[in-house]
């Protein structure tokens, strides 16, 4: 991570030229955005701290709620050896935090037609042969902002266990931090996407109820009933609506299962 190193070196220079206003106010902390000092209120997320400092995001900002993986951030707290990895929209800033965001993650994705591949034991290895080079360093797991056991699902993939690979990787937001850190150049998040699609399509059993309903709709079984509802005078459909039986209420079990 050359960017990480730069931040670390820059830090000392910045500290010397600092001094616009040496003292921090109460509830204020100092962060270093790409090496440059800014004072921001404590308690903000990294994302909101950058905006407070005057940054207007184009890259590095998406859903702002921990689902899209656009705001992968690398940080180091002053005097700490370790780099930290997290999402800018979720992680709260800390004093003396050195911050840099990844604007883009280059990662080659295998191309396939899901209809034309088999969920065989070797399919994941065939599509992503580099997983065989995993050295079990566990750096991927340590860099995951979702706390997914990333290395474990890679090992499941090597073993050909698509089902477990899909299950363990399910919460992946595809931010790419794992792939950026991997010494074996594995594209974990792309591989996991394939594993989940294979499981969803070929391994999990299909719903019979759904197949029946689709058939009924094709046979236009409900067309007439809905047309009747559409043509119904407002007063009547309102009454029908109010009087309809609510399953969740009857069960006294709002969960439904």
């Amino acid at each position: 991570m050359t960017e990480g190193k730069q931040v670390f070196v820059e830090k000392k220079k910045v500290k010397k030229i600092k001094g616009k206003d040496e003292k921090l106010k109460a509830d204020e902390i100092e962060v270093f955005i790409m090496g440059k000092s800014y004072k921001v209120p404590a308690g903000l997320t990294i994302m909101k701290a950058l905006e407070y400092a005057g940054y207007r995001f184009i890259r590095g900002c998406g859903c702002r709620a921990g689902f899209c993986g656009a705001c992968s951030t690398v940080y180091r707290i002053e005097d700490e050896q370790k780099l930290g990895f997290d999402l800018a929209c979720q992680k709260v800033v800390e004093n003396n935090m050195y911050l840099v965001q990844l604007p883009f993650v280059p990662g080659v994705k295998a191309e396939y037609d899901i209809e034309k591949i088999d969920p065989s034991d070797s399919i994941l290895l065939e599509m992503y042969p580099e997983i065989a080079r995993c050295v079990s360093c566990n750096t991927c797991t340590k860099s995951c902002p979702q706390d997914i056991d990333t290395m474990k699902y890679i090992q499941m993939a090597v073993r050909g266990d698509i089902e477990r690979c899909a299950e363990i990787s399910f919460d992946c937001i595809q931010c790419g931090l794992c792939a950026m850190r991997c010494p074996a150049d594995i594209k974990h998040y792309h591989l996991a996407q394939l594993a989940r699609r294979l499981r969803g399509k070929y391994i999990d059993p299909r719903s019979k109820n759904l197949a029946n309903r689709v058939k009924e709709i094709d046979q236009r079984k409900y067309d007439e009933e809905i047309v009747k509802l559409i043509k119904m005078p407002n007063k009547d459909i309102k009454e029908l609506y109010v009087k309809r039986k609510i399953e969740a209420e009857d069960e006294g079990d709002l969960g439904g299962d």
Partner: protein
Amino acid sequence: MSEIEGYPDYMLESIKKVEKNRDYNMKHPVKPMGMKDREKILAKYHPDYMKGTRRELKVGINKGEIFYNGIADLLEARTILDPKDVDLTKIDYDVDVLIVGGGGAGSVAALFANESGIAINKILIVTKLRHGDANSMMAQGGIQAADRPEDNPALHYLDIYGGGHFTNKPELARALALDAPGIISWHEKLGVMYDRYEDGEFQELSGGGTCRNRMHSCKDYSGMEIMRVIRDKARNLEIPTLEFAPIAELIMDDKGQVAGAVAFNLETYEYYVIRSKATILATGGSGRLHLSNYPTTNHYGATGDGIVMAYHAGANLCDLDTIQIHPTGDAFPEPIVGILSTEKIRGLGAIPLNKNGDPFVFPLEPRDVESASLIRECKDGRGIVTPTGMFGVWLDTPMIEIIHGKGTIETKLAGEVRKFKRFGIDITEHPILVYPTLHYQNGGVEINEKCETRIPGLFAAGEVSGGVHGKNRLMGNSLLDFNVFGRRAGIFAAKYVKKAKIGKLTLKHLDKYNKLLEKAAIKSEKTAPILLPEYRGEMAISRSLDIF
């Protein structure tokens, strides 16, 4: 200093009451409201019915109709492009189908346009941020489809129509209900991992305002799972996608058709001229306008661009006098204020409680009624006030594991567990604090069953469109909406393309619109669409210079 660990003591005092009443509350649920009570509580506590949130629009085809102030502000602003600045004679992209927006509706539309015979290199998705950066990705709870034997599409239709206060366009509500099972079946074939029982049947929960349990979910990452699978398919097909290049305005031709759009490269500030035979608007919603000053669950790019550019081109809008506030946005801790806590939490059995630990509403009313009930509780002094002055009521999450057994929360609400764990809150042990948050644009550009707008060549699908949900959308119907109408937009746009003939390109409609503003004596400093919201610190903005 910045670390937040769990709840402050005064909140823990209130939680003790919640715990004390838990058994009783679970055994004595509040009944659903009658129609009269619903109307009463909405009139008094929902922003759609309050004074000062909305006004009459002064310009364009919907002149005289009521719009939320923030949307009227945009529609009464000058166009962002000056036609003089754009050279339409040099075409950068010449395609059959242009898709404006790379979220759920746009991606589904691209796949079905291709399946309906449009060549891959004649499709172009243009998107503001990255492909898949969209509210679709964030939907948690699930997607509705009436596929159980105890359920049927007519019941789903009735729920949609009643939930929308009988204001939906019936033919659109019908399409939503009838296409739903087919969509889930398509997802099965694509490989979406739904929550199922061992026999393959779906684990279906109830949602607010639905009379049958028909919510299909993928843990609490339902939107993410569906969106990433659809995107994966689009990527495998190599559908051309232009990222970080939002559309600024639509292009028309001399026959009054929409004939493409002008994209703006956010990083180089260049524009691109795109000519297309059919254009599908799939720009999503407008939560980032913070209507009525609500925080929002929406993604960064949800600034209502689509409704503005369509209005400039002469398309009509509907139901933008309403907004959907989701009952359970997070109210504590401060860094997550406004972020969604999924309706699935109530679907699994958690009940909203006031500061005394007392229930006050049936947990699964339609969203507007549920939200209004939460607001009432807080306005009447029975809410909790957070250290930063936010209101909230408890949502008693520990009930879930009493009903469904230990471990349920970890497996079904993994995202929620993760979110609160960062702040030292264990939602299996303690309730969460919630308050309504701006969630969804109910209305938008009016469409018909073929996703056509009133302007030839312009189609719309997903949150940007209007008519499907009327004045209130039910949970689980937006993931469904972008699939059903994204698919239809792709199919019908492909059909339209076969006969379409594009004339001479023009941006004259923008000059015309600006003249309308002058005529109406509207003097706005603003331009629209706004493309991105402004969140920079006041200090930073006040000292910024435009010299570089």
